[in-house]
């Protein structure tokens, strides 16, 4: 079923939905930047840049508070139904995931500060690989937000596929880091920090995947999350993106 393109008779309703959408997109933009800058700060050992990321997380928190207030008002005053209900629920859940992604970026930034401060004779070579993992996570985040803006189910499906690649890359890096730690016990405390950073990127991937799954709910009214637990997904044909 296609999303209605006509306006509500009550114009304020359209304005309020637009306000909520804009808040979410603004949040998405800031969150993407935060992840990029946090990883960049980690790779370059730039603690000033890292501190700027930590500071800016407050902007994300402010947007979350405003968005949640908009959601409450929409639910209370407009009693949305059909696609409007699904839109408000989707945007509400997306706000939550974006705020969590922002927190993960802050964690990465904190790790950057910590690693910069610690005396270290053996550099952690895997820091360079964090960049590769971060590009996958950022692609997922960007793709999920893109799918949401354009209501693009194909793009949303690809985010799900990218998550598999991210998980594989994550596991591979964990194995490499673990190997590194056995050979360099004096660098274990720093390596553990790097492990936390790549875990944060893996979490960013998960949250991005969540957002991409909400797009199916918004567009088709189908909940495609948790295939193993979801009775509606038990049919072999029930894959996201397929009718």
């Amino acid at each position: 079923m296609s999303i209605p393109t006509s306006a509500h008779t009550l114009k304020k309703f359209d304005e309020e939905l637009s306000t909520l959408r804009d808040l979410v997109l603004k949040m998405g933009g800031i969150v993407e930047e935060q992840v990029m800058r946090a990883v960049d700060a980690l790779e370059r050992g730039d603690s000033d840049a890292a501190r700027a990321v930590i500071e800016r997380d407050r902007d994300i928190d402010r947007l979350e508070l405003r968005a949640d207030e908009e959601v409450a008002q929409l639910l209370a005053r407009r009693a949305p139904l059909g696609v409007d209900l699904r839109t408000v629920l989707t945007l509400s859940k997306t706000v939550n995931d974006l705020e969590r992604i922002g927190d993960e970026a802050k964690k990465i930034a904190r790790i950057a500060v910590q690693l910069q401060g610690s005396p270290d004779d053996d550099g952690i070579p895997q820091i360079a690989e964090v960049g590769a993992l971060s590009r996958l996570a950022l692609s997922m985040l960007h793709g999920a937000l893109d799918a949401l803006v354009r209501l693009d189910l194909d793009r949303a499906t690809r985010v799900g596929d990218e998550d598999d690649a991210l998980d594989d890359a994550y596991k591979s890096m964990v194995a490499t880091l673990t190997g590194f730690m056995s050979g360099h016990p004096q660098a274990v405390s720093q390596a553990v920090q790097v492990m936390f950073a790549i875990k944060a990127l893996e979490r960013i991937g998960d949250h991005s995947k969540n957002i991409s799954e909400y797009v199916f709910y918004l567009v088709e009214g189908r909940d495609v999350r948790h295939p193993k637990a979801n009775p509606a997904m038990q049919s072999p044909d029930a894959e996201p993106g397929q009718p």
Partner: protein
Amino acid sequence: MNSSASSPKARVKDLSFFYGDFQALKDVSLNVAENEVTALIGPSGCGKSTLLRCFNRMHDLYPGSRYDGQIVLEPENIDLLSPQMDPIETRMRIGMVFQKPNPFPKSIFENVAYGLRIMGEKREAVLAEKVEKALRDAAIWDEVKDRLDNLATSLSGGQQQRVCIARTLATEPEIVLFDEPTSALDPIATANIEELIMELHKRVTILIVTHNMQQAGRVSRYTAFMYLGELVEFGETEQIFTNPLKEQTENYITGRFG
């Protein structure tokens, strides 16, 4: 349409209705699930009240109107619209509650007993018992038990409506039709009637016409959306309200009236 959870109490089959030359209903078919609440929604002129009034042959009162099709009552498999069906008997079995509470200018007791007396019941003890039961089922017994001889018109709007419901229930109908039963009532009276409907449907099949979409959402298991005499979409209320199949339905429930 999925009414597999509940067998139909009535089947509307290819029903058309004409006011003279004007076709107010166009080939409507749907099943009314037994002991469930089915809501009819749609803009003014869509045919929802026209459809409702076919069930109890209200249109018979107006010359120049014509039914084409069937409403089959189960389990007897009888067509309510058949000329052989006595409309008076039909109205004993298919009750109706109107938008404006319309108690007779009689006592509360006599209002509720009216249908029973028409059916021939003369025993006062039986009448008293059935009147009490009907008033209890209409969730108003406690409020009026000590003043059954008072005029029904002395009650508040919400109370009057519940007495009208009791009057309908006294003849133990199989289906009760509600035609915008709360649009003249305040929110508290509305909530009382809705709660009553939620209890009542366990014993009797209910069809409700409402302009208030939230009300349809609150009380009904199934919803039919009508437009210009046609049944556009019929389904479980949960599905109609969160993910309707038809664009027209979506536009209506989301307030995109064009």
